[in-house]
């Protein structure tokens, strides 16, 4: 039983790491990405190839996987963000790059194409995940509460005003993209060493969608919100043994409902804290505005 629960928690934490990165990108910087699964895949393959073919140390491989994700993020971000593409063109461009990466992964000899890479060492376990997750959340929190994070928030709120506050829009967005790509890459490396087998078809838009849904549902402008949402998204369907397909139907519907009725999501611009929980409690039980 514990085996099963720890498995669910492990999977949840892997996605939390990637989602925290995406939360910084979409939730705090206001950019929409349709292809973050690509960075996840890059991290997974880089780490796996390093440990499998070259016998690298697991932790070094993980770090390099994250860096690979970040590097690809930089390469993709530099031209597209420099061109000051509007939000929807940028999203379509990320879709394009995601596709290109998928085609690449299916055709490079070292990745063994669509067949995938089996037999990866299973070095990811709960303690490792807990450490990585804490580290990533800590870094994201520090970023948000620093001048660099505030610049991203300003860009999201009103990029015209942000520029008038001395914020370099291009650099701010690029930083955010590279950080989120790094997080996705790190999560990918952990993923590869957890399932011990990866193939390109595992990194689909399903994964990108789930991450985006968690950020939106958890609340843009919050880190704890997407963390909670990710754990719920992974945990509840497992508990209910709901089939994958209906999960996606629910995600899609949820995205629309949240946009229409509660765009700030669960946490919306706030973090989970004792004060917040107390105010919810007061509202629920005393039935009035706290």
């Amino acid at each position, binding site marked *: 039983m514990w085996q099963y629960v720890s498995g669910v928690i492990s999977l949840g934490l892997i996605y939390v790491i990637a989602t925290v990165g995406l939360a910084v990108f979409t939730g705090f910087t206001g950019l929409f990405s349709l292809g973050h699964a690509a960075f996840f895949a890059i991290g997974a393959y880089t780490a796996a190839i390093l440990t499998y073919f070259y016998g690298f140390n697991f932790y070094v491989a993980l770090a390099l996987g994250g860096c690979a994700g970040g590097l690809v993020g930089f390469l993709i971000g530099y031209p597209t963000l420099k061109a000051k593409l509007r939000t929807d063109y940028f999203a379509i461009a990320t879709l394009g790059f995601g596709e290109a990466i998928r085609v690449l992964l299916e055709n490079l000899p070292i990745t063994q194409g669509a067949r995938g890479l089996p037999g990866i060492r299973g070095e990811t376990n709960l303690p490792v995940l807990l450490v990585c997750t804490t580290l990533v959340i800590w*870094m994201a929190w520090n970023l948000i509460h*620093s001048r660099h994070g*505030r610049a991203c*928030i300003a860009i999201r*709120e009103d990029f015209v*005003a942000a520029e008038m506050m*001395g*914020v370099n829009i291009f650099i701010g967005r690029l930083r955010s993209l590279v950080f989120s790509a790094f997080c996705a890459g790190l999560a990918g490396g952990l993923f590869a060493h957890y399932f011990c087998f990866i193939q390109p078809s595992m990194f689909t838009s399903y994964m990108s969608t789930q991450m985006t849904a968690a950020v939106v549902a958890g609340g843009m402008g919050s880190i704890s919100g997407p963390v909670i949402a990710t754990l719920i998204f992974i945990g509840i369907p497992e508990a209910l043994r709901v089939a994958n397909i209906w999960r996606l139907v629910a995600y899609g519907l949820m995205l629309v409902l949240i946009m229409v009725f509660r765009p700030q999501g669960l946490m919306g611009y706030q973090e989970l804290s004792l004060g917040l929980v107390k105010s919810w409690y007061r509202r629920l039980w005393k039935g009035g505005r706290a």
Partner: protein
Amino acid sequence: MIGDTEASPVLAMREVTKRFGGITACKDITFDVAQGQVMGLIGPNGAGKTTAFNLITGVYGLTEGAILLEGKAITGKRPDLIVRLGIARTFQNIRLFRNLSVLDNVVIALDCHETYLLTSSFMRLPGVRRRERAIHEQAMFFLASVGLEDKAATRADAMPYGLQRKLEIARALALKPRLLLLDEPAAGMNPEESLDLARLIRTIHEQFKLTTLLIEHHMDVVMALCERIFVMNFGEKLAEGSADEIQHDPDVLKAYLGEGFKRAQHI
């Protein structure tokens, strides 16, 4: 240089011209704003005043001419760079960071001159923590200078219009500019509110000795605050002079102020 008592102007506009396709929004605009001066930029709607601001802040590129800040050309520089060189502006339609608190709006402005590294941010080194404390204290100081210190935790868009305008000004002050551009700060205010605002701008000017360029339609505010006034019409210069001269200039009266214009009450 010995014998040279004139300091260089903070802002120098030299034959500034901006064309958008077939339309000439600004033509050969030339004026100086001296150190510590409050200068008014007035004229009917569509005269090119906000375009001039956008040209100064780098949002639009110049078609011809040059703009100098304290003697150094800023033509063609990126807007965020120009801000860091020392120009702050407020917007005609308030552009606050609405979802953020009043305090955070000012903090972001203060970030402009901070230099601690990204890697230090990620690890939240002690140096960063010290800077952050200092920034937050300074932000409270700027809020106090416009009288908003007790609203620090309020959401920016939850405040009444008049206070939002004050926050815009506080934000601009926090950028520690050499030149302050105010774009219709009294827009949408009734006479009482505008006089209140004018008093605030006067106080701030005295406190910070800030060189200011002001676009405004409320003539009482303009005449009360501005030592010199530059009048634009159809993108070109119509007149330039002291407040007194402008009020009696027949061209200005005809084109804009109206023949029956009387001097505003003292503030």
